[in-house]
């Protein structure tokens, strides 16, 4: 009953209400996994459906993701070690020399909304920083974004370094001038023309 209320509060992106309801539900003894899967994650599936239908706009999806995360923070200390709450770990940033981060931010927020752990390195990120962070966080995917056609070549530099060092990180590239052909040419594992597609691609690349 109240798990449904959590679900509704996420879909209505009411952060305060989500936190209160999750706390109350935990206190009343409801199984934490049920709150997580039926309340929080179930709600995000509905949000995703509404977005795909064109009923929800991007800001609504982002607000819902924020509400979901707030609820998740309450649950985190209570989840047992084995419980896999995240779909995968993503390192994301705009490549060296590029400060244009609108698209990257959108992808970052939507990935979080979809349940990934996202480490956003911000703008102007060089290969060393991408790789060091990915190693430290044991990441699944490194996502690189560029708006300037002049900064795109840095994507290839990072991908080459991953290969040369024999690392297992998957790579995704995106940004207005980045085409599928370009992504293939430089050996990226994933590419998407837009943010929702990036989430789909990440899901595919991390499917176990």
């Amino acid at each position: 009953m109240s798990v449904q209320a959590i679900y509704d509060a996420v879909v209505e992106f009411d952060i305060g209400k989500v936190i209160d309801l999750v706390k109350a539900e935990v206190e009343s003894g409801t199984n934490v996994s049920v709150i997580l899967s039926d309340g929080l994650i179930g709600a995000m599936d509905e949000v995703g459906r509404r977005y795909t239908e064109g009923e929800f706009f991007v800001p609504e999806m982002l607000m819902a993701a924020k509400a979901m995360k707030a609820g998740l923070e309450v649950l985190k200390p209570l989840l047992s070690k084995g419980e896999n709450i995240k779909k995968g770990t993503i390192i994301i940033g705009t490549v060296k020399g590029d400060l244009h981060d609108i698209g990257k931010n959108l992808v970052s927020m939507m990935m979080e909304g979809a349940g990934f752990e996202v480490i956003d390195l911000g703008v102007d990120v060089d290969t060393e920083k991408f790789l060091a962070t990915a190693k430290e966080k044991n990441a699944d995917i490194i996502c690189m974004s560029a708006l300037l056609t002049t900064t795109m070549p840095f994507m290839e530099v990072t991908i080459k370094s991953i290969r040369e060092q024999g690392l297992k990180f998957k790579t995704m590239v995106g940004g207005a001038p980045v085409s599928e052909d370009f992504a293939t040419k430089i050996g990226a594992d994933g590419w998407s023309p837009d943010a929702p597609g990036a989430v789909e691609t990440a899901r595919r690349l991390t499917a176990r």
Partner: protein
Amino acid sequence: MEFTKLFTQTEADRVHEASLEILENVGMLVRNEKALSIFSANGCRVDMETKMVRFPREVVEKAIKTFVPNYTFTAQDPKFDVTMPGDRPIVVTGSSAPNVIDPKTGEERRATSTDIANIAYLINELPGFDVFSISTLADDAPEGQFSMSRFYPALKNCKKPVRSNTPNMEDLKKVLELGILVAGSEEAYRKRPFINHHYCPVVSPLTFDVESTEAVMYLTEQGLPVYGTIVPNAGMTSPLSLMGTLTLGNAEFLGLSTLIQMIRPGAPMIYAVLSTVADMRTGAYAPGAIETGMLQMGHTEMARFYNVPSGGYIGLTNAHSNDAQSGYETGMNTTAALLAGADLFNMGGLLGSLMAFDFGKAVIDNEIALMLKRMKKGFEYSEENLCLDLIGKIGPGGSYMDTEHTLKNMRSIAVLPKVATREMRRRWEDQGRPDAHSRAMKEVNKILIKPNKSRFTEELDAKVRGHFPGLVAGDVDWHL
């Protein structure tokens, strides 16, 4: 011609005041170290640690005092020189798309230096265009010649003013070296600098970048032509209201202008913008949206407030083919901007929000440009143009077709389009029902199959090629 006014004097004053408040209280993040020290030395409150710069109002007001009302684009051939505001509207191609729509296959592909040569020659010949902003990148650029592979084919095949950007200082200096070589000497080039540089040094909201800011400062110091475009995107990098985005963009323009005027008081500038509203359904970038035109109108009014030339990337489209959407997005937004008094229209030839150049689109935009220029010329009010004597002479029921007056005006009063059809349906059917795009491509072909008389002389070309070994061919190569 009276321009459309959107705001009362009180409202325009308030936008200005609000912009000063933003600069003073919120400030700008300045990532370029040299810019930080210039701001610091000229009265801004600078935190070197956080790189935050706050602008006391008197600092901005001092900069505004040295704004100048003119901006000139100098050409290799002086007959193509244009100055704002006198020669407005100045129509410029859209620039730096990575792709081209292949004229033969109709498929999108990466653009090359040969495409740039073809486009340069086309723009040289299309009378609606005043400035050639290098439309695409060159995917075939040899290593280390990213910018040379764009500027060389452009300058080689187009005598109109050439405009574009460079990704770093090394490329910028090489391009200037090319300019000096073409001009004959550094002195000659400085007298008539026919390359105009353009950057987007401000990344909204309220941030100066490193490389573009460096280039703008360098060119300003050198007294060479440069201007910046301010690019807020409502809902993403600026508030989701037209007033909020106008005001934030205005503050960013003032921030950039203050830097330029600190370096060289009286440096010519353009209040150039590409203010847009993001499509909140997907986050999509929408430069073809009508709000882009509305925001341009608002910025143009603020430019008039400061008495500086205005314009920007206006007349872009989100359409992926040269179709009705492409036409109405370019047509409506540029008409709006023209009626508000904009001077500069970065509008020609690009599809898919700046992603691909299309030859047919460039020809249609040329016609739109001619129509805009016609509108700007206006009714030419005069006693003589009332034609009272003639009206009396012809009287009721007569015809004006065979009068001296008509004969005198028949080639100048109306735009005579080459693409728009005015024939009866049957004739159009007999021609195979050509649409606007195929008629436009025919015009492209007509121009590009002829040899380019404006090309570099062999002597000059040999000099340039000798100086820069390994250059791309940079010649027109056209066959459909």
